[in-house]
């Protein structure tokens, strides 16, 4: 008997040590995640001179001057509305076109479904960034370099494969009887789409919105080759400006990085549950 108690006691100690180790490892990871972000935001309120003297202490007299300067240098009053336009435009476009095609793939009969649907699936694995040089040449060939249209076109095209995959799978799970009975009642396919399929597809549309809003807002590689005019640029391009000759002006650089980071942080804090679900469902990498 005493031996058994002893054994269970040593087991308990072992499991406590194990638990502590797990907490320690995950704690280090969590610290490495949160501290750089905190450090960045905190230092954005210091003057560059104060930053050069002390990088770890809290700002002595917090200043907003960096934000004023960064906002002007980065032309953020132009870029912010652009980012919103690109993000909303691409997201709405992807959702609408994906649901539309998804409905056709899932509920309308055609021999074309298999090859076309499979070509979209292949596109999930083929990332658009790989194609940025031919894309750049293509938009020049079509005469749409430096247009918002080209940016939206490319963003929508890049988001369609995963969008169509998720919508088709989702709409397939809707009973066909729903569509058939509406057909018997004399409804056209577009009526059925708008009044039955779209309302029933809100969950998958939410997932797509979550995935595309973060991806599009943060996208850099493609828009970098699609536009060169400041009035067409998005936030990541403006932030990149602070990497070259401006990078020694740490105060402004940190303010610019914070401006770029905060909208998505806020979005994440508000929609964390949906984002987590969307990632698990979509599992795409930007």
């Amino acid at each position, binding site marked *: 008997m005493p031996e058994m108690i002893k054994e269970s006691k040593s087991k308990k100690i072992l499991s406590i040590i194990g638990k502590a180790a797990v907490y320690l490892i995950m704690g280090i990871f969590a610290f490495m995640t949160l501290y*750089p*972000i905190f450090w960045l935001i905190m230092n954005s309120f210091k003057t560059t001179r104060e930053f050069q003297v002390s990088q770890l202490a809290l700002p002595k007299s917090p200043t907003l001057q960096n934000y004023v300067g960064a906002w002007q240098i980065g032309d953020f009053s132009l870029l912010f509305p652009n980012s919103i336009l690109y993000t909303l435009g691409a997201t709405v476009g992807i959702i609408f076109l994906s649901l539309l*095609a998804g409905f*056709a793939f899932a509920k309308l009969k055609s021999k074309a479904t298999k090859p076309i649907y499979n070509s979209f699936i292949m596109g999930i694995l083929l990332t658009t*960034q790989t194609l940025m*040089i031919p894309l750049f*040449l293509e938009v020049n060939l079509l005469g749409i370099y430096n247009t918002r249209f080209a940016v939206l076109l490319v963003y929508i095209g890049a988001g369609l494969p995963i969008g169509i995959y998720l919508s088709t799978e989702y709409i397939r799970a809707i009973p066909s009887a729903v569509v058939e009975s509406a057909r018997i009642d004399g409804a056209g396919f577009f009526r059925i789409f708008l009044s039955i399929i779209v309302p029933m597809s809100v969950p998958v549309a939410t997932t797509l919105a979550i995935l595309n809003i973060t991806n599009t807002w943060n996208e850099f590689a493609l828009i970098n080759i699609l536009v060169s005019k400041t009035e067409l640029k998005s936030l990541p391009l403006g932030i990149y400006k602070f990497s070259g000759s401006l*990078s020694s002006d740490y105060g402004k650089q940190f303010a610019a990085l914070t401006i770029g*980071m905060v909208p998505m942080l806020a979005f994440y804090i508000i929609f964390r549950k949906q984002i987590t679900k969307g990632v698990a469902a979509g599992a795409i990498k930007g």
Partner: protein
Amino acid sequence: MSSTLSAPFWGVFMTYSSKSYIEEKRAYWAMILPAFTIYLLVMAFPIVLSIVLSVSNYSGGKMFGGEKWGFAGFDAYLRVFRDPWFWNALKNNIYIVLVSVFGQLPLGFIFAYFIYAKIVKAPEFWQGVLYVPNIISVIVVGLLWQTIFSPHGPIAEVINSIRVREFQNQLRGIFNAAGGFSLSDDVIQKILDLVGPSGQAIFSDPLIDLRDLLSSFHGEPIEEVYNALGNLFVQKWSPTFLTKSNIAMLPILFVILWMYTGMYLILFLANMQKIDVQIVESARIDGANEGQVMRYIILPALSGTIVNAAILAISGSLSSFALVFAMTGGGPSRVTEILSIYMYNNAFLGRPNFPLANAISLIMVLISFGLILLTKAVEKRYGGKEE
């Protein structure tokens, strides 16, 4: 919309079923074509274009009606394969793939398991925090870590403040041994020994100059002496993480691990939570330990997810661009170039070489598909066995 409008017109000539058939066909194409056209423009056409241009001598400018260009053979491919910088970039991409598949995935899996098995409390907190890097723009992440690894970053400050403190502690020891602030020969000599030859080099006559310097502090708190000597003698350490060519890839790989591990955590955790709780519980009742539950229930149930995650990691790694672009831009002297940056520089830096850049683009597409096929084959061979 046109199909619904014209349906009555067709109805005059057709029976109900064939009218309905035509309506369905028209609706089908009206629904597919907008998406498919955009998809062809953004994905298929660029691939065709890159095939054509990679075997051409196109050198920029108007594609039609400009300077004449035509077939030039497979010269561009040969040049890519002969270019040592291509192999350097490919090597760096392989490092990224390795860190993704053997770093992010296992770490994400282990963290997910810690949360799933309730080894740690507050599941929402860990998930929520570890995913944060994913939602920040890669450009922000790249510039942020560039600063952190730079001589002006917190790493340098922590290391330097430790060095200063150590030095000051030794100074304190010297003065304490002498019974407080003192200008005796013994104390001066000990300080000079402490700072070493490189510290002494700032004086023309170390013994006299140091005594002069110290005597100027007479009457002031001794902490002032420590601070002044600390600033004067402790050499600042300047980190070279991103400027030394043999280690510059390491910070990039670290940031990639830092950034995406949380995504795999969420992916794996969501799929672990789909496993029927009763299966796990009854296995435990039958005496299965943690390792056996992992081996015979969790791993088989997640094998599909793991393969999927590996495919995503591979295709994502091959296309990554912005992080390296922001963090090092491929430098110092090109050692951290990855394929996408190697391609970008060939097209946009200096004299554009479009055939070469397009050849690289196609090579990347092919590598991507090759690796994906390989993963699928591995899955067919070894996965699913357990089910």
